[in-house]
């Protein structure tokens, strides 16, 4: 299935995949577009490009963290072609959109020769480059349901400031009143075969009033929950440590304690 081609074509050129036929999704109009559907939430067509996510006034309004995540991906040219559906279906462990979408409770609709089904994104990924999508299914839309989040954020840590895969990616979504956290969702990317919820870290945060010490504890918990590998971009040990660091930073951001570049606000 060909959407943007920014993952498929390089894989074909590097002999990682050799399809005998490509089916372009270009002409399926229902895969485009983004709307708000009462009861369903923000519904995003699978073929919306990453730049489409960046520019969407609907997303900027309701879930700025998703637009900001898209903005951190690849570079401008790639974002003009790469699609949200393609990013999800590629199921690359270091992909940026899955963590923030999972934090925001997103679900995806899969349509094929059988009846259409909706799968929570959290249950969509099964392993590196593997998901529950069947060979005869297309991912058609992503829905972010209405929810009581007070702040969400995704921080990507890459080895340069553009065109870099995440070495570690941390997404958070909170229901908080001031520094008091009622509910937390923390999702880690690039440090396990799939994006994972850091449930122990969430538990340590829930019902607490945030202090530096709490953040430290939460970060350490998240670090212990991930299962990173060592590869050309970083060692397992480093990734684990960085999960701790960026969990704290993402939480600070979602609690509105930092400016958009991650630096601490004064006062």
């Amino acid at each position, binding site marked *: 299935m060909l959407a943007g081609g920014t993952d498929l074509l390089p894989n074909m050129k590097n002999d990682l995949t050799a399809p005998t036929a490509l089916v372009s999704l270009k002409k399926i109009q229902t895969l485009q577009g983004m709307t708000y559907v009462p009861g369903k939430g923000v519904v995003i067509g699978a073929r919306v490009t990453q730049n489409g996510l960046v520019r969407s006034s609907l997303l900027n309004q309701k879930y700025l963290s998703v637009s900001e995540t898209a903005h951190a991906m690849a*570079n401008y040219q790639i974002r003009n072609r790469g699609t949200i559906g393609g990013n999800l279906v590629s199921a690359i462990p270091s992909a940026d959109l899955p963590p923030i979408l999972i934090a925001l409770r997103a679900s995806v609709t899969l349509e094929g020769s059988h009846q259409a089904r909706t799968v929570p994104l959290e249950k969509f990924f099964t392993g590196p480059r593997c998901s529950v999508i069947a060979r005869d299914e297309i991912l058609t839309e992503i829905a972010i349901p209405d929810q009581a989040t007070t702040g969400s954020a995704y921080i990507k*840590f890459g*080895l*340069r*400031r553009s*065109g870099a895969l995440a070495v570690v990616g941390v997404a958070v979504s909170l229901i908080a009143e001031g520094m008091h956290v009622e509910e937390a969702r923390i999702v880690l990317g690039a440090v396990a075969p799939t994006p994972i919820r850091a449930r122990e870290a969430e538990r340590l945060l829930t019902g607490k009033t945030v202090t530096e010490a709490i953040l430290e504890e939460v970060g350490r918990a998240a670090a212990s929950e991930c299962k990173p590998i060592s590869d*050309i*971009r970083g060692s397992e040990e*480093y990734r684990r440590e960085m999960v701790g660091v960026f969990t704290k930073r993402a939480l600070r951001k979602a609690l509105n304690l930092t400016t958009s570049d991650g630096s601490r606000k004064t006062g």
Partner: protein
Amino acid sequence: MKQEEHAVIGRSVPKIDGRVKVTGEALYAGDLRFPNMLFGKILTSPYAHARILSIDTSEAKKLPGVKAVITHKNVPRKKYGISPARYDENIFCIDKVRFVGDEVAAVAAIDEETVYKALELIKVEYEVLPAVFDPVEALVPGAPLVQEEYPGNINTEIHHSFGNVEKALSRAFHVRKDTFIGHRTTHAMLEPHVSIALWAGDRLTLHTSTQKPHYIQYYVARMFDMPMGNVRVVKPFLGGGFGGKEAAMGLDFAGAVLARMTGRPVKMFYDRQEMFLYNRGRHRQIMELTTGVDRDGKILGVHANFIMDGGAYTANGIATAYYSGALLTLAYDFRNYKFDMIRVYTNLPACGAQRGHGTPHPRYALESQLDRIARDMNIDPAELRLRNARKPNAMTPNDLQVNSCELKACIETAQKASGWKEKKGRLPRGRGIGMAASGYISGAGYPIYRTNLPHSSALIKVNDDGSAATLYTGAADIGQGSDTVLCQMAAEAMGFRYENMSVVSADTERTPHDFGAYSSRQTLMSGTAVKRAGEMIKKQILETAGQMMEVDPAELECRDAMVFLKRDPTVGQPFAKVAREHFVRKGLLVGHGSYSPPKLGGRFKGAAVGTSPAYSFATQVIELEVDEETGEITLKRAWDVHDSGTVINPALAEGQVHGGLYMGIGEAIWEEVRFDEKGRILNPNLAEYRLPTTLDVPMFDSLIVKSSDPAGPWGVKEIGEGSSVPTEGCVSNAILDATGVLIDSLPFTYEKVWRALEKKRIVESSMKSCE
């Protein structure tokens, strides 16, 4: 004549090829099309070390669209390389392959897709042999032997000793011995190699992406036993070289053979992965450095004991090995110097010359060590450098003659421009400022093969009506702007206008001999030839004008395309009118000139390497921030202060500095070629071989100090490579200042910095708990 008085040089005129580059009209080798042209590629080895048992090309030959397939059986078996002292490559491997990427066969076919398919159909039977990927391991007796003629895998061994280093170190107040590791990087120029071969009878033409048409002509003629006059090498527009496009390659040789066999032009090309395999980039160096200083931090002696990983072939590496040690004596004044070097063969892609040619890593080592000495002795690093800075008109211990040298002014200007004194020791936590100094050659004193040919020559032809002039130069514009700068020099010398110049360059049939673009030689060497050619024109112009005006030519001057009486500049004749008159009365108005450097250097083995008619000097300062939690480095600002003699085109000189800083910074922090346990490159692409993007580097500041060297035309020296030499050391010192941690190897990846900081934190917290 004071620089301000020059008419053309010293001005930032727009590049002569600027327009064709912004419109896409400029044709690079890969853009050229010839009628009936075929496409060709080379089959490479998947193994790091293996015997070739058989090669079966029959299936490939049968593929529709394939016109020829060749192996070692179809090409001369003569060994080639760059330095005659180390010809160790064959066009195609005969008995064995020596690295993943070694060249085994080639195909010519009607289009790219067919060529790629045909390569897959060539069946090579290999017997895999044990391989060695580390130079230290390769030196161990019993290690796999890469090249049969080089026992112990020793490619080049150097032992130089000047003065008495042992005595100097024993007298020293403070001695430091550190081992630094410089890493393997590659040029990563954007344009991949392309070579198009075509024959006309017995004459071969190569349109090839090269920095040095002459040498390609020489090597190709030699390989095929042809007179050089039957080999024409043309450099089209070139998309970057940095030392990586200086050799005759398999693409050139195989292309020539395939073109001969098929009777059709053949375009040979590499894709990006193959660029990484071909490599010829910077050597990994293990550098043990011992430096002794007196109470004031004055260097008394230095012992450099280095091992280089040369990869599977020499390429230009024998020169690199000598350069690594030769230029360490340039920037600082000390008499006692010992240099021991072994360049080792391994089963990895061959290394050769890359911007700075062997000197950036040793520079990183010495500059880092000096900052550590400064820290040990509580001396400001800038002050330490001032105390040791080379002065003009000096001879280094290894017999390199320095004429002009404004290093002291560079250091002082760098201090001022960067706010060094206000910042050093006073920056907020995690922020640091570092300095490094260096020197570099303005052209190699000796050519690569033994010859008494002049190093450069040039021809200028003035148009019949005198309204335009064409410069013919063998010098190669590889992006640095030599076409532009040489036209400025031609116009200046002639008394003509840059705007009316055109240039034909780097075509061995159409342009006079020049060794080409390497060792930062062209502004000085090609420039001298051009200046002489221009002066010859001017002399004829003044003579003819003298006749026309009935005055003694000595009373005339020519400037900005006007000939005028010195004593009354309002009286004169336009250059064009005089030129036309000259053509009518006396014939073609042409000028020519050539240049050979004087005999340079000492009498010891390898003394030639490092010699140069003039040396540039530089000081760089970098300010950066380290995120102490992650090790991430953010560059804040960078300054380069250069002594490059007279500057012909300030904007282009600045551009070289920007690029030099960029490359040095990229190599210092982000870039590294990495291998798996089978010698395969892990990151043969421009995503994981991390070049900094626009978001990773700040604006750079380029400053020039006033200087002029008697060896250069109008006093010029180099800037293109010298601006990348101190950078790794500068980044190293800035990180030391920012973090207080000593890191002994390149690159400074975020993880490496983080580990060093972690270690420091652990030490500090355990010390605290002891209190």
